[in-house]
């Protein structure tokens, strides 16, 4: 599955548009990570636990989007976008969406 946030994929031609596909993931932070984050809040700096958490949930959202695209018979998703929103305190939703297309080989 090819992903691109351009409207095209260089060197390939779009045969067919298969519509919008999306995948989302909601994650909450866990206690251990929160404690380290509390410490880091004092001196500032990267909160590695959170970086990983959000990276993982973005991967999850992407793989759900890809699964949906595969179900429609697509071989690429173009114009991929991300969006983040906090659903409740300590939980975040990550949404990935794009246009599923069939590319010429």
């Amino acid at each position, binding site marked *: 599955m090819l992903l691109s946030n351009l409207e095209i994929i260089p060197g390939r031609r779009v045969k067919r548009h298969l519509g919008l596909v999306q995948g989302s993931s909601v994650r909450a932070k866990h206690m251990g990570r929160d404690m380290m*984050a509390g410490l880091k809040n004092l001196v500032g700096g990267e909160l590695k636990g959170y970086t990983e958490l959000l990276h993982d949930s973005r991967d999850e959202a992407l793989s759900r989007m890809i699964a949906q695209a595969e179900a429609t018979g697509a071989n690429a998703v173009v114009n991929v976008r991300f969006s983040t929103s906090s659903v409740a305190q300590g939980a975040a939703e990550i949404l990935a969406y794009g246009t599923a297309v069939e590319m010429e080989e």
Partner: protein
Amino acid sequence: MDPQSIGPLFQLLAFFVLLASGFGIGRYLERRHYRSIRSREKELNGLPAVAVKVPDAQTLLATSDARMVMGNVVISVDYFKRFVAGLRNVIGRRIRGYETLLDRARREAVLRMKQEAGQLGANLVFNVKFETASISKGSRRRIGSVEVLAYGTALIPKR
């Protein structure tokens, strides 16, 4: 000293210790981060990331493949800066502590995205977009940390 006055006194002492450690260690960590950002930016100078939406024909002809790449980072501000920012909320004006926080986060995210692109053998990253989220929005104890995601499409040149 009577035991009743020790409580508030201890709290005041703890507050100053937190403030001082935030100021000292926070400043040191920020400087170290900026040094590392600058040196890595120099290394990745040969791999430009641009915010152009559609590559020109010449670039397209030289491209064999495209992959989406991204980089993210969550950075927190230190205790001292948060305290100062709280004061600034009263009198207004710019809050430099938060400016550097966002600047560091954006540059770090771009660097991570470029590193991923470099591993794929790309020479250009097109259509770079940023996504910024404040992690602890609406929580009682406001943490003052932000997540920045940078993503784009890496173009891999023909051999």
